[in-house]
């Protein structure tokens, strides 16, 4: 029940937005709880976007893992 799925905002109208869950699965979600822009990724839970997902942070997380793992091999 705490499942939340990342989706990309394709259109915003008031407190509703159309999101793309990937491979063309579109759905309307409520964006009252976040302030997204078109193109942002959001986490969607039970029809509500609960937080935006930072793609830059996602890349940095992976980079950090690789850094730590590389340090181990030295």
């Amino acid at each position: 029940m705490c499942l939340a799925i990342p989706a990309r905002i394709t259109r915003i109208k008031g407190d509703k937005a159309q999101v793309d869950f990937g491979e063309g699965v579109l759905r309307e979600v409520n964006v009252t709880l976040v302030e997204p822009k078109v193109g942002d990724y959001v986490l969607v839970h039970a029809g509500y976007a609960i937080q935006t997902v930072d793609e830059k942070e996602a890349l940095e997380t992976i980079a950090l893992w690789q850094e730590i793992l590389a340090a181990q091999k030295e």
Partner: protein
Amino acid sequence: MGMTEKLRFRDPELAKSIAQKIHALTSKQKTIKICHVCGTHEWTITHYGVRSLLPSNVEVIAGPGCPVCIVPASEVDETIELAMKGTSITCFGDVLRVPGSHMSLLDAKAKGADVRIVYSVSDAVKMAEDEANKQFVFFAVGFETTSPSTAVEISQRPPRNLSFLVSHRVIPPAMELLASMEDLNLNGFIAPGHVSTIIGLRSYEVFPREYSMPTVVAGFEPLDVLFAVYMIIKQLSENKPRLENEYTRAVHWEGNTKAQELIREVFDVKDGKWRGLGTIPSSKLALKKQYAAYDAELKHNVKVEEGIDSQPGCRCHLVIIGKIRPTACPLFMKACTPQNPVGACMVSIEGTCRVWAKTVSS
């Protein structure tokens, strides 16, 4: 292709490297017991076989992370009473089969009650608007991931023929209960990522400070969980328990402040019963006085004080705190199956027994 697939959150080579690092840090350690409190974490761990990558002395156990599993029978009974009296009940699909004292909402539906599954609380609002001559109740179950959506709708004052049976719980007090159970011997927490997108990190500070437990907020890809295990083990090996955030792409220190404000606007925090855990102080949300018109218990005059939470033989109360594995329950996959659940942990797709049943049978 979604964002997570494009990135390397499921990369087997990276997983292997992280696992090696965990093995290197734990070779001389005694048993380490790490607890998560989220059904989706259990799903990730089981589905991707994360446990098989860990050393034998590192145990990851599932705490009370399934909101459907911890709803006490008394609250299910109230919903059933309302349904049998002619109110239309709206609820999330995984609540339908949760056992009440004598039956589930699905049984009530089979007896002719109007019980409707919704994807979102906004669907319930729409139904109440469309059928103004009917009384609707939304059975509001869920942790902090879900309660903001209920708060949004109530704060916007939906139609008066819709009221709410509020069963929302907050998770940090349950974690504190587990941390204080000395016989559980927990060494660290993987904190729930989606709950944390809402509440932020502050509520977890107590665990490293008061209980010397490393606590790491983690995301839901297999490498998120594996890396969180590594971060906890590293803290333990340094003997410096602290609070860390692995899920930085979605969780910020302050959380979602707008959601927090809405929750505070609509709900008070009260002591609440959890199935299998008893009463936990300051763990249940209840509607504030100014929203009393939306309180289903008051509006329809229904109150069940005591229900039958556990059927004979059921060990959900031990599974829910990670004291035993589902396979140690005598009913597991015998009298209790996903088709005919006896205990609440077998009902929701996030219940520990249900997650294990799927893996055992597939």
